[in-house]
């Protein structure tokens, strides 16, 4: 059983309320930081912890904080990214629903570290119930004197507001999120300037994921060095993994980074194996944008080492034979799933969600969707598969924001690892409409479901 830092008290009745959260040791980090640490001390602890952004990019949080510009007389902002929209990812929803004060406490400590007196939590609009939960939590915290003017008599003032989005995946990109928070369309900005210099309202701003901000609480309570002891190499601490698709026990799990992928899939402590006695076909380990892996590259890397749930091990082999930790959106495919259909589905998603600023993404995602639709529906040709490869290559790296890459990578990986399945659709147009291709011939060895 691994250590739980974020979800330790998740099963405590009433943990959603301020009183129970406080009884369980909540808001100790606020007291410690505000009363006995300088803002720079807090930044230093987060740096020592090795915490990497939990939204998907994995950039070191402490380093991001240290880039924040601090011109005289200009307000600074902390904006929490709760736009969770990456298909496969539902960890932030879970955290905000069940233990909202973990986020509020993290917001207070982080805002203090950055010198922000007004902070916003941007939550996707569909999570209206979670927005209400957070607003209630903020009101409770304020009533207890841990938020608002002169917190704990330290002279530090902070207000936190919750902002709803309008239903747009692109607003998970930090500059699009800032545009949206300013009441505009979610069109990503050209960088530089980075938000650390010119973010919200042109002021220095840090944008951090919900889970990253909540993770600051145990880092301050136990110290950055203690946090860094958990995990392996540069993958420190714990991570929330949201497991879905064809697993026996879908849900949100807090893991110590370093758990073997095979254990995560098959152990009863986590996913409990593949649902309905089926066999594993493929895995999308970190949200729909990361490269899909066929069964033979999931438990072991290409060199035969056990594949671990760490940033490094998941990425082992690069995009040829590896993938990414991403957001922790863990999507498991059983033998009955069609890779072509899923790739078409994901591509339709990216086409729908492209903001339209950059031609390669706006046009390319639509072309890929159409070509994939053709192949999936038995109307494709072998040349179409090469065309897909060509389009995705021309999107990648040629757009303002990473949505283009996020759309290109799943298509590239699907063709790289499952080209035979694409060809089968082309060569057997009628058969492909009545049955699935099943397991790829090389997707072996496959671990049988534990009896």
């Amino acid at each position: 059983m691994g250590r739980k830092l974020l979800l330790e008290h998740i099963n405590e009745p009433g943990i959603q309320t301020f009183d129970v959260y406080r009884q369980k040791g909540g808001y100790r980090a606020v007291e410690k930081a505000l009363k006995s640490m300088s803002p720079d001390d807090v930044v230093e602890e987060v740096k020592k912890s090795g915490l990497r952004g939990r939204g998907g990019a994995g950039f070191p949080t402490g380093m991001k904080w240290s880039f924040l510009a601090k011109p005289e007389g200009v307000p600074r902002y902390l904006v929490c990214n709760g736009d969770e929209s990456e298909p496969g990812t539902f960890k932030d929803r879970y955290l905000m629903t069940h233990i909202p004060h973990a986020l509020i406490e993290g917001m207070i400590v982080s805002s203090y570290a950055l010198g922000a007196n007004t902070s916003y939590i941007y939550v996707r609009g569909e999570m209206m119930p979670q927005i209400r939960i957070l607003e209630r939590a903020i009101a409770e915290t304020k009533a207890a004197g841990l938020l608002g003017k002169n917190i704990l008599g330290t002279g530090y003032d902070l207000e936190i507001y919750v902002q709803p989005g309008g239903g747009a995946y692109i607003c998970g990109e930090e500059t699009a999120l800032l545009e949206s928070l300013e009441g505009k369309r979610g069109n990503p900005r050209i960088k530089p300037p980075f938000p650390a210099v010119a973010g919200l309202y042109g002021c220095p701003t840090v944008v951090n994921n919900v889970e990253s901000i909540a993770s600051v609480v145990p880092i301050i309570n136990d110290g950055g060095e203690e946090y860094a002891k958990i995990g392996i190499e540069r993958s420190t601490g714990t991570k929330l993994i949201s497991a879905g698709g064809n697993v026996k026990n879908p849900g949100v799990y807090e893991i110590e980074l370093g758990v073997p992928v095979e254990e995560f899939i098959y152990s009863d402590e986590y996913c409990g194996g593949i649902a309905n006695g089926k066999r594993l076909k493929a895995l999308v380990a970190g949200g729909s944008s990361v490269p899909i892996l066929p069964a033979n590259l999931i438990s072991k890397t290409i060199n035969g080492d056990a594949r671990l749930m760490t940033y490094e091990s998941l990425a082992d082999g690069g995009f040829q034979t590896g993938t990414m930790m991403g957001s922790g959106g863990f999507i498991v495919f059983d033998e009955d799933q069609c890779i072509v259909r899923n790739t078409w589905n994901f591509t339709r998603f990216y086409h729908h969600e492209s903001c339209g600023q950059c031609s390669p993404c706006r046009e390319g995602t639509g072309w890929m969707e159409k070509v994939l639709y053709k192949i999936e529906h038995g109307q494709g040709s072998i040349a179409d598969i090469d065309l897909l490869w060509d389009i995705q290559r021309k999107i990648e790296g040629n757009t303002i924001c990473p949505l283009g890459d996020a759309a290109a990578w799943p298509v590239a990986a699907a063709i790289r690892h499952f080209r035979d399945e694409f060809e089968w659709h082309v060569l057997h147009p009628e058969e492909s409409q009545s049955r699935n291709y099943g397991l790829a011939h090389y997707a072996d060895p496959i671990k049988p479901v534990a009896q």
Partner: protein
Amino acid sequence: MLSIQENQPVEFSAALLEQFGEIVARYPENQQKSALLPILHLVQAEYGWLSTDSMDKVAAYLHIQAIEVYEVATFYTMYFLKPQGKYMLEVCRTGPCCLVGAEKIMQHIENRLGVKEGEITADGLFSWRGVECMAACGYGPVLQIGPEYTFYENLTEKSVDELIDTLRDKAKQQA
């Protein structure tokens, strides 16, 4: 597209305007445009959709151009630019939910309600559509119903039937 034909004149109530004011107070001076998305949610919750007139009045309230409201309302998928059924069933249609049967659920809803995606039932009670990932992939298939965005998880054809019956009864009682 903005609907000119179906425009609906509105007059914001004092209670609604008070809520607008609370939202505007969250932002620094002269940044009241930040209130646009939350205010549009409130307007939609009140009227069921965003008529051109309602958007024009929001623009006037926030001291911004009408086009600034239109460009936001047309960008974000949660805003309805034409009237919908009283209950809009929004079913997740993205990959992870499809792995656990979302497509069958959408087909079932279409059959059960007898209307295609985006259409409204003759009694005005229901419409439905597929939406992109709702960040609930472990509980799929899922659907949500605004304006409170209540979630219905692990859907089966049976649970969808029950939900539709419940909503129909609820509407009858309210009538």
